[in-house]
């Protein structure tokens, strides 16, 4: 064995170490085993050889031939005892509830850059050699040769329980500017519970009635209020509705440099007659009972629910949806805040991006995703069920699970067309301000919305999804309108298949109700090769009693074919609200890689367990990917409906422990 002085092979629990390369233990031989696949195979009649239809990785069984030698028999015995105790501890980690410390192997070959780690599951050592045999008598040296079998998990980039930060990003290019946060490990990457195209177009500062220029794209840092604010000075944030794909918005993200010093400020929106108080969760507001925005330095956000009476208005000559932050009382020594580092933006995307280089290894990495609620607190924008879906970017950079049921704010390859009793209408309380209204659907199933993915976009949508719909039944009785979802390939005559469930609203007059269609394939075949070109379409079909209406906001297609996790507060005790983060953790506690913890953000203390309806969370290795989020308020079982407020938002932190079949080298 050519074990150089830089090589490393130890068994440890992080405290006690048995070094297998240095006396008294010396490695005589080890031929590293590779994880074996456990396959399920099928074979058809006259179909040739069998094929695997499923596989998973088994544990790895390595055999180390060890030699222990030394002149102190007691010392040798103690070392062997310590070794055995570590290995027993390794087994107890898995077999008992109380043992919480894992035991692992660390290995690095000579001239190899990175150490790899493997969590020990069990061990086997059948016999010692004869302590009374030669050279015991001849050389006065104790020597023990034995084979040690160790069963262990995959090789990891970090020791069990540890992980590396994975940089995530969330950005949007629109109207010549790029909004959002580039890749970072900081808690500054936000996700929405909707997917809009519309982004801020204008920011104006009102200094004593005199408006400044548009601050979108302005040199940074810039003042968000006059340097010395006075009463009724204000800063306006708006989306110009004369621009295509525009509409209302429900959040703003700031990066405050100089913090504001004011006595009282107030967020306001225009209701058609006056600027009125806008209820917000303002994370830029420091402690204290009086509303006082921009008191906290760094990246923070402001959230609100679309006011029902919110209408467009012209501000400084620009007509659009506007909110403003007005100085109610400037107070003595007032100081205006500054925006630094990046443009102010609204959170309009429901995903984080992960670059290919961020997750390495030979196959999927164990992952940990922490989602911090940013929107709840002062406004009712919490939730208690979060669904996360993973999709590799190579499958379609233009894929989004969220299809707005509107005539705007979708990818250009998507066409949404209402028919029959369906028609587009305005509703400011929807993600886009537009929706499809069904008026008195009759007692025969009829297509009310057709969503066509053109031949360019359709390949990017190929896959399996769990489909949800958001909307509101506005009249009639609960259950009067039934809806179903059909996936169709090709044009209107192509083969089609329905999603599993027919759904109906369990309530009338409640908005943001979420309906669950179940799983659906797009297109409804697994028979298309990569190069095959075909349109795909989805039909939403309705059946009613002719006396009930409903509004449909958006269709959400959560991808299920790479990885999906559905995490919910099954006992309905702890809402994922402003003080809480959901820790979806496949890393930190190897005994249970499917846990989901609700932690207090301030302390990290665990407050509740969410049910993990999921496999171990993973990230794909060596490929760019996106994690998509859909957030639901899962009401108590006695309530026959759930809701999903699209204004809910969070921020995401990501970690991974890469997995390897064998040596790491420098990767």
């Amino acid at each position, binding site marked *: 064995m050519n074990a150089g002085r830089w090589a490393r092979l130890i068994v440890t629990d992080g405290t006690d170490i048995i070094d297998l390369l240095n006396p008294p233990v010396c490695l005589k031989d080890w031929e590293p085993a590779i994880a074996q696949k*456990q396959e*399920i195979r099928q074979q058809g009649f006259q179909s040739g050889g069998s094929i695997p239809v499923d596989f998973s990785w088994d544990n790895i069984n390595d055999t180390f031939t060890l030699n222990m030698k030394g002149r102190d028999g007691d010392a040798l015995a103690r070392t062997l005892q310590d070794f055995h105790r570590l290995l027993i501890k390794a087994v107890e980690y898995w077999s008992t509830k109380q043992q919480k410390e894992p035991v692992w192997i660390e290995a690095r070959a000579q001239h190899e850059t990175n150490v790899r780690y493997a969590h020990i599951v069990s061990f086997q050592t059948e016999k010692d050699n004869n302590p009374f045999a030669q050279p015991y008598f001849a050389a006065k040296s104790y020597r023990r040769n034995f084979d040690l079998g160790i069963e262990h998990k995959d090789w990891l980039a970090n020791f069990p329980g540890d992980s590396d930060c994975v940089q995530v990003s969330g950005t949007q290019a629109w109207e010549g500017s790029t909004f959002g946060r580039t890749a970072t490990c900081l808690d500054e990457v936000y996700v929405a519970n909707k997917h809009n195209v519309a982004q801020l177009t204008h920011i104006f500062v009102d200094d004593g009635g005199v408006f400044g220029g548009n601050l979108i794209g302005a040199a940074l840092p810039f003042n968000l209020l006059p340097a010395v604010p006075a009463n009724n000075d204000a800063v306006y944030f708006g989306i110009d509705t004369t621009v295509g794909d525009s509409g209302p918005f429900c959040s703003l993200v700031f990066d405050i440099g100089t913090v504001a010093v004011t006595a009282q400020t107030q967020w306001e929106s225009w209701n058609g007659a006056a600027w009125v108080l806008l209820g917000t969760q303002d994370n830029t507001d420091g402690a204290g009972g009086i509303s006082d925005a921009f008191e906290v330095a760094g990246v923070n956000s402001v959230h609100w629910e679309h006011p029902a009476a919110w209408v467009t208005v012209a501000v400084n000559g620009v007509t659009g949806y506007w909110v403003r932050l007005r100085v109610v009382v400037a107070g003595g020594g007032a100081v205006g805040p500054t925006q630094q580092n990046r443009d102010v933006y609204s959170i309009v995307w429901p995903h984080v991006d992960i670059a290919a280089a961020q997750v390495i290894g030979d196959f999927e990495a164990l992952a940990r995703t922490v989602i911090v609620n940013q929107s709840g607190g002062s406004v009712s924008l919490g939730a208690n069920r979060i669904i996360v879906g993973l999709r590799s970017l190579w499958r379609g950079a233009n894929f989004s699970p969220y299809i707005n049921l509107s005539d705007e704010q979708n990818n250009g390859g998507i066409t949404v067309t209402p028919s029959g009793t369906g028609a587009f209408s305005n509703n400011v309380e929807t993600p886009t301000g537009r929706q499809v209204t069904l008026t008195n659907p009759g007692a025969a199933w009829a297509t009310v919305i057709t969503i066509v993915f053109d031949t360019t976009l359709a390949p990017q949508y190929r896959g399996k999804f769990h489909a949800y719909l958001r909307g509101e039944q506005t009249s009639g009785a609960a259950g009067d309108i039934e809806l179903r979802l059909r996936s169709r390939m090709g044009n209107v005559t192509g083969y089609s298949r329905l999603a599993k469930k027919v759904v109906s609203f369990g309530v009338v007059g409640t908005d943001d109700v979420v309906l669950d269609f179940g799983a659906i394939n797009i297109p409804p075949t697994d028979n298309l090769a990569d190069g095959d070109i075909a349109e795909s379409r989805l039909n939403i079909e309705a059946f009613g009693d002719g006396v009930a209406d409903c509004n449909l906001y958006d269709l959400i297609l959560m991808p299920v074919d790479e990885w999906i996790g559905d995490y919910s507060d099954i*006992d309905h005790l702890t809402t994922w609200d402003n003080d809480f983060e959901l820790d979806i953790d496949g890393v930190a506690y190897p005994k249970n890689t499917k846990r989901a913890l609700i932690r207090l953000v301030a302390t990290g203390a665990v407050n509740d367990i969410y049910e*993990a309806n999921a496999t171990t969370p993973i990230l794909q290795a060596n490929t760019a990917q996106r994690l998509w989020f859909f957030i639901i308020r899962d009401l108590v079982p006695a309530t026959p409906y759930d809701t999903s407020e699209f204004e809910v938002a969070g921020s995401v932190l990501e970690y991974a422990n890469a997995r390897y079949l064998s040596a790491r080298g420098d990767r």
Partner: protein
Amino acid sequence: MTIGSFFADQGIVIKVWKPTIVVAGSNVTYTPQGEYIGTIQDKLSAYSHTLGAFGGYLNGTISLTDTKEEIQEWLSEGLGRHIEVFNPAKDQIFEGFVGSLNGAIETLTFARGPLLDIANRVSVIYQLINRTVNPPIDGMRVVTASADDNTSKIDWGVFEKIYNGPGMSAIEALQVRDKFLNEKKNPETDRNFTGGSADPNITLSLLGYLHFLKAGIYNQTTNSGTTTLSVKIEDILDDGGADPNALFASTNADIEANAILVQRYENDNNVPLSLIKALVAQGEPVNDERTLFGVFENRKVVYETMPQTVEYIKRLSDERQSVMTPGEEWIEPWDVEAGKWLKITDFLIGETETVDLRLDPRMMFLEQVKYTAPRGLELQGGKVSTFPQRLAQLGTGGTSA
């Protein structure tokens, strides 16, 4: 690959609840999703479920290997627990309850149940004998008032039984009733010591909620005359005697209209499932086609005419041996449903498809589908004709399920 690791890798989830049962007077609120226990897929050593064209979620089996403490807990608390199984796409694929269980801890083997054998609302039907005269005179057959055991009802839900007794006096009938109630109010438990030893394990025999249609008695003596078959099914589902645990409701059902007229009056102390079987056996009135009845997710009842189109295909030569849709979307074995037509497409190649699917030898009507983890699938074909339905409408014959 263990079944547990297969389910964990695939994302198949088995959730367990302890039902909450609240008894207030004669009203019972039985909530299957009462107290959430957790998921058990990681501990699986075997799993199967069977779906039926009649019945929907019919039955299943779950075998678990766990610590002695956990197995003991299952033995003590497991009977009646509510089970839901979800596929990787988070759709439900089975729902039921633990109808009975058996297992072993070292040399002790044990069994508990069946739940449905419990009787905690009991009456006795008997022939009244008058012994005050000599010789005693046999009188009419009469029924005692029912007696309930509230403790048992709170523990297990309501299970009504009518004991068919011999000739006896009224006092004797009440004694028999109370003795029967006392004997049957709790589930049977068997224990044996065996020579061998076994790792702690338990097998849960699951039943779909269809079987709760055996928990009550349906009598309807208020109205005579006729009603349509579909309305009568709704009446049975909504009847407090037929469904004393209030698990079913016509408002949680898709009942296809069926205009066949049937008698409303019922006074034969039938369990509702028997009546429903007889109603379903009559088929639909236009073409005498079969009708299907099933209990599915959230105890939703579906009653409909059997399909007339092919919904699944399969090829003998397919390497994956998948059941597919006609559009060739692979259906995972745990997602395959009963009550659908399946066509074998590489069998009798070139044969023209018949309008009447039952005449095509490549067609198979899936009477029952049994999924066995990890990827086993048994498809049981059923005979499909119109004659039995016509006979049932005339008052003879019935469905078998």
